[in-house]
């Protein structure tokens, strides 16, 4: 039977005119399957129209007040709500606000509707857990986002730092000691959660934060349950989540932290289920043969298929990990910033130049760290405090023993002819052509990085499509250089406030800054700009290496700002230096 024409006509008109319709009632009174189908389709169209009406993910702006809270910035965004960093003026402290949609939300990956009130009830129970390794829940409040629009929000402790997932992504797989350290604190967190009669159900690297000082904090009791790659085999067969399935997830997390891979992998839920059923999995020993037997045994035991073969409690697992650490046979972790320690899954990585981003950040950190170290070395020898810590500098991996001085000068130029030299603070505008002229006494590897006020950063040079390539022969070079015989320039493509350029030169290649060295695919012809956002985790990396960097309170300053802080202004004349030369110049691009 075809849909009732009069009714369809009325609804078509209402949708076209953007009028409200009680869809549930309309669908409930449909007279036939065909009619119901037509109504469902029309309802979809109405929803699509609504989606195009407004910003589908409205954002609270920094400075905006919501209830008594002052928004400082967004720190996370998920299908179930946004997380903001905010200030609570009453208690004069920073908090994290997790703001939920109203009523119910549909989990987009499973299509399952979850009642927000149910989730909030769980959060209330979590609030009873007080432990340094478990995020503190301050309360649950209803926040007025707009007149008449109140949304439930979880008010939590703000944990500065990064998720363990971000940490691993930025620096590569963890060494045994670091992985064990994460495991120990996580077990302590879970012991507290389990003691409160709760099961976490969603332990994963994204839900564990690493504070700048190194504290590990278990976050987020997710609604809707576990994450497939972290799910214990029995959960696939319909078993209920338990203490032992939480510990299995800790095993997956540590396996992932140590290898960048998952013990059981699949392209989708079905293949994952099949892999579990067939007992197909990777073994930690095969991927990290050098790890201590005690640590490998501990992680593998947590990953036992039979729940009874796993640790009985978080405390038992913690004891096993602690014993593995005492066994002391583990190799020391690789230096934090060394990009070579990144055995992440190369199979599943894209051959796109985007993968370059975290490596570039790591390399920048290495460079910065090296510079800080050499400065300290100089300071210390000047004050008679001892010899320069040369070994430490070398261990960073990016600057070398080749410390023979070299002479270098650089100029930022505007214009496509011979160009005009730009001084700090000069203006540039969309459409301008820019270049950098280097004059170097020796063969040097040079790098040019641009960052705009929006926090977007790009590696402008080297680039696979242009010549000359690194290392630049002694002499004078205008970069980016030539492509296919034609001289090319960097073009300012949009307004963006202050444009900052970081210029780096070294006798040795800084491999993680060089796409050729990395064996990356050549970017598409017109995508000459490599997108290399410097992630916030770089800040933690800077701070995290053996306490060797300055420890002033730099909260609130971005990684990018901190990196630029460490470069000195580009002088107008050549200078003679050794090690890594790093200079900056800022010019003004009109704001958007």
């Amino acid at each position: 039977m075809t849909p009732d024409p009069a009714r369809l006509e009325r609804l078509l008109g209402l949708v076209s005119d953007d009028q409200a319709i009680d869809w549930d009632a309309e669908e409930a009174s449909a007279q036939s399957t065909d009619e119901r189908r037509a109504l469902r389709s029309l309802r979809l169209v109405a929803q699509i129209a609504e989606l195009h009406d407004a910003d589908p993910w409205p954002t609270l702006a920094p400075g905006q007040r919501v209830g008594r809270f002052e928004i400082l910035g967004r720190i996370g965004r998920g299908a179930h709500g946004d997380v903001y960093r905010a200030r609570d003026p009453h208690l004069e402290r920073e908090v994290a606000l997790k703001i939920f949609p109203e009523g119910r939300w549909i989990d987009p990956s499973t299509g399952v509707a979850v009642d927000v009130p149910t989730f909030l009830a769980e959060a209330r129970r979590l609030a009873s857990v007080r432990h340094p390794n478990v995020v503190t829940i301050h309360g649950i409040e209803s926040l007025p986002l707009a007149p008449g629009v109140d949304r439930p929000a979880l008010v939590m402790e703000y944990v500065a730092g990064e998720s363990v997932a971000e940490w691993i992504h930025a620096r590569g797989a963890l060494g045994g000691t670091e992985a064990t350290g994460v495991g120990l604190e996580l077990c302590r967190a879970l012991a507290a959660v389990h003691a409160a009669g709760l099961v976490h159900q969603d332990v994963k690297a994204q839900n564990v934060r690493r504070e700048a000082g190194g504290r590990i904090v278990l976050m987020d009791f997710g609604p809707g349950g576990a994450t497939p790659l972290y799910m214990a085999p029995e959960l696939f067969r319909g078993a209920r989540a338990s203490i032992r399935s939480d510990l299995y997830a800790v095993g997956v997390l540590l396996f992932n932290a140590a290898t960048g891979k998952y013990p059981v992998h699949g392209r989708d839920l079905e293949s994952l289920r099949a892999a579990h059923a067939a007992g197909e999995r990777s073994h930690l020993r095969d991927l990290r043969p050098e790890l201590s037997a005690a640590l490998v045994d501990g992680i593998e035991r947590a990953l036992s298929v039979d729940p009874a073969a796993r640790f009985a409690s978080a405390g038992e697992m913690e004891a096993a990990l602690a014993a593995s650490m005492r066994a002391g046979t583990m190799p020391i972790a690789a230096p934090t910033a060394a990009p070579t320690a990144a055995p992440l899954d190369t199979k599943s990585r894209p051959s796109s130049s985007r993968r370059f981003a975290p490596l570039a950040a790591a390399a920048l950190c290495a460079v910065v760290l090296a510079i800080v170290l050499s400065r300290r070395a100089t300071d210390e020898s000047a004050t008679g405090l001892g010899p320069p810590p040369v070994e430490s500098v070398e261990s960073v991996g990016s600057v070398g023993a080749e410390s023979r001085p070299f002479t270098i000068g650089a100029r930022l130029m505007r214009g496509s002819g011979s160009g005009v030299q730009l001084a700090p603070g000069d203006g540039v505008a969309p459409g301008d052509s820019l270049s950098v002229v280097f004059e170097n006494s020796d063969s040097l590897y040079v790098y040019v990085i641009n960052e705009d006020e929006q926090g977007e950063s790009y590696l402008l040079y080297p680039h696979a499509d242009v010549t000359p390539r690194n290392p630049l022969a002694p002499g004078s070079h205008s970069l980016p250089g030539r492509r296919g015989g034609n001289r090319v320039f960097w073009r300012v493509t949009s307004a963006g406030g202050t444009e900052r350029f970081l210029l780096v030169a070294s006798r040795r290649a800084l491999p993680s800054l060089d796409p050729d060295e990395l064996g990356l695919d050549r970017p598409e012809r017109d995508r000459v700009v490599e997108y290399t956002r410097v992630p916030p985790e770089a800040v933690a990396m800077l701070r995290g290496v053996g306490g060797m960097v300055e420890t002033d309170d730099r909260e609130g300053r971005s990684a990018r700002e901190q990196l630029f802080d460490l470069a000195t202004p580009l002088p107008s004349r050549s200078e003679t230096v050794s090690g890594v030369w790093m200079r900056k110049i800022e010019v003004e691009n009109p704001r958007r």
Partner: protein
Amino acid sequence: MVAMPESSAADPPPLESTHELVDRARSGDAAAVERLCARYLPRIRRWARARLPRRSRGLLETDDLAQEVLLRTVRHVDSISSPGLAGFHAYLRRVLENRVRDEVRRVDLHPEQTDLDSAHEDSRLSPLEALLGREESARYESALAELSETDREAVMMRIELRAGYDEIAEALGKGSANTARMTVVRALERLVEKMSRGGLDDA
């Protein structure tokens, strides 16, 4: 942002009819190009936000993408084969779809967060997909593609670009807003018919 090697930006005010602007842009009028950009940018931005995977980009970057797509379309405005606004819109949509597809592919390939390591924060989905599900949004897109050019233009302008009936009348060469409304209603009817034929198993 600094890029290599081409293009520049624009952001001025409207006045003329969109039809006129497209025609003038075709004949190389730079001011018309700028005005077209100003007029379309907010719409393209919303359109792109609805379709980009959430993980993919921050809002500022979505703006860059919208701008890039618009500039690319406008730059090729003289090579668009079918005349008038319909051709312009069709071309714009194609460029945008391609660009979004690139972005989706990039996000799908992203190494760290595979399909399965995020149960309830599937940021690979666009808001549109999160709302409808991938299958249903694909059903909508393919039904839209099957429509006649005029129907598609009517649906796209009203539903996606959120244009008023006046503007649709002008774009489609209808005599009045009322006629344009009827065109939209009939186009929606045909769209819904095609979508319903596609399935909705649990109906």
